[in-house]
Each structure stands twice: as structure tokens, then as C-alpha cells.
């Protein structure tokens, strides 16, 4: 089957799709159920929701199934679906300060009011392949994890660690929230972007790209050496405003990850005040700590006093962590470029003729 120009393209595409469907279901075994992906690939689902910029676990799981596990492709599917949804309204700000915590740690202080809760984490596991999973039976559902929470029913969520530093004047007060925040999916972005737009772009950025840039900043191209003041994973209520009612109404809850990172360098807007720390903020749909930490580092890096490294340059960062765009453009090089390449060929041959007329045969092959 050749990759040939161009007529009969429709047939070729249809045949390719049929083939792809056969590849997806190869092996002759029972179809992978979306519910199984939801249950047992929860972190993949969370990543796809974040990069897909849509909190809908079932659709994310479906996308993973459809994309045969290619998470970039799955996020693309979700993003594309997102384009079909109307924006009914902006919710009131998520009450993250009332999160029901399933995990909460601080790397800044050994003891914090409200306590630390390790929760479900691989941080302190040893990455030894568990060969027993090769033989794990298909029968007998395992028990569901217990609903362990740092602040169970009716209990208050502990105050953030950053609150204590703020009270002492060691951290600036958070800048006032942009109301309403910029939505880069609705408003064309321009540089320099306001912070709400930057945070949105980071929240749906491609994780690998964010990791690379955040890593560059902590490694030496930039100077963000963060301390994790607090990392939280938990459930947050989502509220909507109903026109007939005065109160916001809770319509459900979502699992989120939140990171607050302290950096010792001062912010641009902080010049002239007594010495204090600054804070980077990270947030992710679902359970994804790497993502939240990278976002917090980049949020902080892009507020640097002077731009001396790529991670501090918001144009550089925000243009390139946009994974759906980046992979689309990268993949697009597979598209036919016969015409432009022909133009390049012609140009090159002409240049050669000018440079070394004697060496070039008069009749250039067409």
C-alpha cells in the first residue's frame, strides 16, 4: 500500500480507518471496557482530562480506548469534543479552601496544623516490576479503597501553610482575582498575557513540555528552587449560579490537585518592599502532582524580575507547552508538501547555478 499522490485518496483514507479499527481490536479477546479504564487507568484518565481541558472522566477513558492508549491523541479527541460544547456560564471560584483532602503534604515544615496525610502515592514505593501482576486473576473484584480523608464529614479543611507565612508578612497577599478571568478558549490571547490566562494555559498544557521547561528552570536555566509549601489532592464542590436563587448551588464535585510552591526570590511587583518569599501556584484536574508542581514552577518563573532564561519568557513557555497545537504542527509535516518542496528545489538549483555556473549542467532535470 503506497503513500501516493493523490487521487483515490478517499478510498485510501477509508481503508486506513478500517485497518486502524482492526489494529485496535487485534488479538481476538474481549473488548476493553471503558469502565475498566476508568477504574484501573485513573491517572491516564486524569492526564487526558487536564490536557483535554475538560473534566469528564468517562469521555477521557473513552478517548484513551479509542486512541489505543496514545494519551496525546486522547487529549486531542477530548479537546476536539470540547469545541462542540456551549459555555453556559462561569462558575463561582472553586472553594478549594474547603477541599475534602485525600492527600496533603508539606515539604516546608515537619509539623503543620491539621497534619499531613500521605494518601495514595507511589513516592515511597520501590519501582520493582511486580511480576505477580502478570498472573493477576480477572475474577473477584478487589474491595474499594477506604474513604480516608484528612477532614471527614463536617470537619473543617485545615488552613493552608502559606496562610501562616502570609500572617508573618513573609509572603505577599495573593493578587486580586481577575473577575471574570480571561478564557483563552474564548478570547484571543495576546502577549503579555495576564496571569489568569497564563494559569489557564498552564492548566491545560502538555505535561512533558511543562516538565522539560520547569526542569530547565530548577536545573540552572533560571533560578526557581521551590519548596513545596503544600501539595493537596482532594475533592472540591462545583457550584453554579441559578438565576432564580440567590445562593450558588452545588452540582457535583471534582477531584483536583493543588500545589503551592515557595520561592525565595522576590517578584517584580514586590520591589521596594521588605524581603519576602514569593509563591507559585499549580492546579490540575484529577490526581496529578507532577503536573501541578510543574505548573507552579512555571507560574513563578514567568513572574521573574528579569527574563534571563527560557522558562521565564512567557511567550516561549506558553507557545510551546500547548501540546495539542505542538503535536498537530509536528504531525503536519507528514502532509504532502509537494508544491512548496518543489519551489525549494527550484530555488536551490537556481542558487547552485549562480554560485558555480561551470559545474552545473545546463539542463537541470525537471
Amino acid at each position, binding site marked *: 500500500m503506497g503513500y501516493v499522490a493523490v487521487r483515490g485518496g478517499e478510498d485510501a483514507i477509508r481503508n486506513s480507518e478500517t485497518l486502524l479499527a482492526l489494529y485496535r481490536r487485534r488479538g481476538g479477546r474481549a473488548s476493553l471496557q471503558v469502565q475498566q479504564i476508568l477504574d484501573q487507568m485513573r491517572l491516564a484518565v486524569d492526564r487526558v482530562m487536564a490536557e483535554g481541558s475538560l473534566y469528564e472522566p468517562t469521555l477521557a477513558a473513552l478517548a484513551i480506548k479509542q486512541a489505543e492508549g496514545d494519551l496525546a491523541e486522547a487529549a486531542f479527541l477530548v479537546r476536539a469534543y470540547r469545541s462542540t460544547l456551549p459555555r453556559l456560564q462561569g462558575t463561582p471560584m472553586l472553594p478549594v479552601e474547603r477541599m475534602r483532602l485525600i492527600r496533603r503534604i508539606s515539604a516546608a*515544615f515537619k509539623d503543620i496544623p491539621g497534619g499531613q496525610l500521605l494518601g495514595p502515592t507511589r513516592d515511597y514505593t520501590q519501582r*520493582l516490576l511486580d511480576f505477580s501482576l502478570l498472573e493477576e486473576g480477572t475474577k473477584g473484584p478487589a474491595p474499594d479503597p477506604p474513604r480516608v480523608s484528612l477532614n471527614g464529614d463536617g470537619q473543617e479543611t485545615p488552613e493552608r*501553610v502559606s496562610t501562616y507565612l502570609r500572617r508573618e508578612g513573609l509572603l505577599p497577599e495573593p493578587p486580586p482575582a481577575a473577575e471574570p478571568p480571561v478564557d483563552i478558549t474564548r478570547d484571543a490571547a495576546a502577549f503579555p498575557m495576564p496571569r489568569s490566562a497564563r494559569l489557564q494555559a498552564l492548566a491545560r498544557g502538555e505535561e512533558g513540555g511543562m516538565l522539560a521547561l520547569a526542569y530547565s528552570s530548577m*536545573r540552572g536555566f533560571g533560578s526557581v528552587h521551590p519548596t513545596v509549601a503544600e501539595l493537596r489532592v482532594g475533592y472540591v464542590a462545583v457550584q453554579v449560579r441559578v438565576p432564580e436563587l440567590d445562593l450558588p448551588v452545588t452540582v457535583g464535585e471534582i477531584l483536583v490537585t493543588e500545589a503551592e510552591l515557595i520561592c525565595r526570590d522576590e517578584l517584580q511587583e514586590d520591589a521596594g518592599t521588605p524581603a519576602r518569599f514569593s509563591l507559585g501556584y499549580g492546579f490540575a484536574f484529577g490526581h496529578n502532582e507532577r503536573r501541578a508542581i510543574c505548573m507552579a514552577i512555571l507560574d513563578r518563573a514567568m513572574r521573574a524580575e528579569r527574563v534571563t532564561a527560557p522558562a521565564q519568557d512567557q511567550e516561549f513557555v506558553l507557545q510551546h507547552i500547548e501540546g495539542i497545537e505542538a503535536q498537530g504542527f509536528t504531525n503536519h509535516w507528514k502532509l504532502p508538501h509537494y508544491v512548496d518542496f518543489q519551489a525549494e528545489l527550484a530555488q536551490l538549483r537556481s542558487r547552485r547555478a549562480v554560485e558555480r555556473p561551470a559545474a552545473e549542467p545546463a539542463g537541470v532535470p525537471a
Partner: protein
Amino acid sequence: MSYSFAFLDEQSKRAVRRALLKAVALPGYQVPFVSRELPISYGWGTGGIQITCALLGREDVVKVIDQGADDSVNAVNIKRFLQRTAGVATTSVTAEATIIQTRHRIPEERLRADQILVLQVPYPEPLRLVEARETETRRMHAEADYGRMYVALYEDIVHHGEITLPWQYPAVVNSRYLMSPSPIPRFDNPKLHLADCLFLFGAGREKRVYAIPPHTPVASLAFEDYPFRAEAFPGRRCERCGSGDTYLDELILDESGRRGYQCSDTAFCLRRRQDPSVARGWGEASAPGTPRGAEA
């Protein structure tokens, strides 16, 4: 299925030991090595673990601390890993250990000649502060071209009135190589000077090891008019053992934000509680910062 003694295969461990021999022969010089993947994530002490695994024999007694504490989760996890893969004995008593792996601290209790301290290193390159590129920092080390580092410290003083580096405070080893002591606080820098023990430094992700052999002079960077100063905790004492000469952790005690202080070195704190007269043994100001020019 089973794994080799101390996880890594023997060839890999030998490669680490060869790099370590070179490191000991060239104090403070960063020796590249082939860092292997471990079942513990990069950034969590893989450089230190590879050194420890390469050195371990069946008779060794290992202590692992993280931020000074034996019971910190990362330390416990690394200790568990070493127990599981090498079956060695572990201890939290500093004097009992033959190999001590540590992150961000040097124990308060002076180490003996028969003990090795293995430090986990995130940033082996002290010049990264002034130069991002590896090609350039290698050249600077080769030529002992450390002027930019002094200029950076000078600018720090001009801007802030003092040198603001809180940890990973660079030092010159044996009057030759500028070295990062890993993210230990300044408080611990003087312990590196003319010590009895061997210090080994491992950076897994950056693929470098380096060493300070026993009795090697180590001078923290300073100027004649701006001498090296370690952190102090004036008026503070450990709430558990009462020590006023140890490095203290700050704790938030309650919702009002009230603070408390405790020894960061939990093993030493325990000893002091049993016997308040136990000395640290490192001496007071065992290595005052060497003024510029004096180290030559």
C-alpha cells in the same frame, strides 16, 4: 526472579567504585559516571544510593537520614531498599554505622576515620549559579577560573549587604577545585574541613560523583571583609534536649502560628537527652572561611 546483592549488577557497581577512586584522588573534582536507573526516582537520592550500593559489603551497618532525621519517609524507604536488596543491618545510632547516607545534613556527632558519609546531591555543579552550560563550567574548573563566582558573591553583597546563599554554599577543596557541598546548610560547611571521615557525593540524575578524603582542607568562599558565617539560632534551644549548639527545625505548633524548635539531627537529639554532656566533636568554627587569595 531475584535481584543482585545491593540491586545493581557487579559491573555497574565496579564502575561506580572506579569513579569513586578517581574522585578520592582528585578531591573536589566531579567525576562523570554512568548512572543507572534505580527503582527509586531520580531526585530522591539515586546518586547516594548508587554509591552506597557500590560500597556495601555484608558486614556493613547502614544509617540513612533525610534532613537529619532517621524516621523521615524517604530515609526509611531508602533504608528499606538497602535491607531488601542487600540484607544489611541498619541503625539509627550514628556511632554504630559504617556507611551513613544523608540528604541535606552532616550529623552533629563527629564521624570517625572508619566511617563514610555518602551525600545525595541534586546539583553537583557549584558554578551553575553563574553558568548554565556544562561545556563552559568544565572549562572553568580545568582552568580554575572561578572569578565569576567571586563576582557573583560580591554582587550579592552589593545588592543585599551579605552573601544570601542559604545552602549549597560553595567551598574550595584542597586549594584547587570549587565544590558544591550539596544542599547542606552553611552550618554544616565547617564540618567538611580536616575531617577524619571520607565524604562521598553522588548525583544520579546529573551523573557525577566527587569526594573529600579525610584530613583535606575545605574553605567556604568568603572575602577578607565579609568572612564566612554559618546560620545561628540566637536564643533558641531544642525543645526536646535543650541543645543550643545544633541545627534546629522550626515547627508550626498550632493554628495561631506559634513556632517551636527541635534538633534536626534526631539521633543526636536522643543522645543529648540521655546525656546532656555529649559533645558534637566538630569543634567550634573548625573552618573559618578563607579570604580571597589566602587559599592559594
